[in-house]
């Protein structure tokens, strides 16, 4: 079922990529040029239009990995396993970018590039989990074991997601609490709009990247399997003769 769904939406890949580009360019125009500076942070607030969507997309990518891993353990669908593998790489990429843009924002607002604040630390842990996951996949050779071990690791690592998201609500942090929460939205409309469009754009970009990477990994694995079969065939005919 999932397999057929993934295959079907692969056909619309180009459209998703185009929509992502459109949203990102429009969002950047709104965020960097059109929107007003913040009353307190001034022009520096514009970094938010890049940083916050990057961080959210990293969480979405890991969320995809988490759900995909559950699905894989249940159904053992190889294509879903490839999707998880793809999502992990994209999680790592977006996490690194979010950490870098966050540091650039933190220097002028907080006066430090990095501090051992719960939100920052739990987010850096996400990078460790994603890279650990990728390492595990590289080192385990048997494809079935690779998929299983990796899925278990991704599910265990999922504990970090709520910790990251709610850290500034649960603990004392330097990082400001959530702007969009049960309390309501503490952002004016002209600041919220570019943020929403950039978020949509980066989410679409993530889906686009995920599709391409999943396809790539699927084909690579297929090729490997075929090569393996050819090799064992040659080996068999060699030893039997």
């Amino acid at each position: 079922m999932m397999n057929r769904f993934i295959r079907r939406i692969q056909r619309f890949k180009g459209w998703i990529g185009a929509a992502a580009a459109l949203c990102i360019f429009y969002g950047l125009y709104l965020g960097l040029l059109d929107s007003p500076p913040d009353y307190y942070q001034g022009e520096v607030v514009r970094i938010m239009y890049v940083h916050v969507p990057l961080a959210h997309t990293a969480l979405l990518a890991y969320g995809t990995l988490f759900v995909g891993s559950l699905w894989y353990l249940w159904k053992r669908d190889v294509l879903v396993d490839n999707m998880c593998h793809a999502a992990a790489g994209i999680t790592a990429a977006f996490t690194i970018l979010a950490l870098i843009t966050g540091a650039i924002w933190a220097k002028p607002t907080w006066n430090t590039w990095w501090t051992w604040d719960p939100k920052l630390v739990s987010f850096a842990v996400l990078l460790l989990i994603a890279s650990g996951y990728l390492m595990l996949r590289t080192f385990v050779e048997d494809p079935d074991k690779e998929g299983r071990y990796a899925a278990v690791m991704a599910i265990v690592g999922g504990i970090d997601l709520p910790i990251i998201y709610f850290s500034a609500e649960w603990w004392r942090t330097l990082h400001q609490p959530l702007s969009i929460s049960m309390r309501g939205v503490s952002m004016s409309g002209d600041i919220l709009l570019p943020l929403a469009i950039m978020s949509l754009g980066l989410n679409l970009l993530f889906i686009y990247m995920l599709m391409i990477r999943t396809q790539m990994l699927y084909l690579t694995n297929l090729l490997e399997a075929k090569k393996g079969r050819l090799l064992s065939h040659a080996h068999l005919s060699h030893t039997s003769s």
Partner: protein
Amino acid sequence: MWTKGKKTSLILSLVLVAGALGYLALGNFGENLVYFVTPSEVRAFSPEQSQKKIRVAGMVVKKSIKTQADPVGLTFELTDGEATIPVVFQGIPPDLFKEGQGAVAEGHWQADKVFHSKMIMAKHSEDYMPIEMKRAGIKLPKKDFMKTLSP
């Protein structure tokens, strides 16, 4: 399936990742779950606690900032609504450090009942709006800063 070199490197990298996670979880992260203390907590400090380098967060009391020429720095007061502590800061404060705004100071609470700091960070809230809206006195639904100080 498991060549020897691969197995060694797998174990090595797992140990590395587990070690890094453990370091973060038990070492720094554990201590920093209390990222800062409040002025009321500082007032209640025992002499031993005063030895440690800590972070104090609070609202900078309005009209309390006084600049000093030698050594370059300033003095101000931090409050959490209940207690207020005097802070002596050496250095140049960040741009967003203002009266009536949140700030985190890193340093020592010394026997003279003054907090000595060489590092200030500005803590901004989660509300974002253009200056015109702020001037018009529009309030957005943010978390009460004083409440964020009590866990």
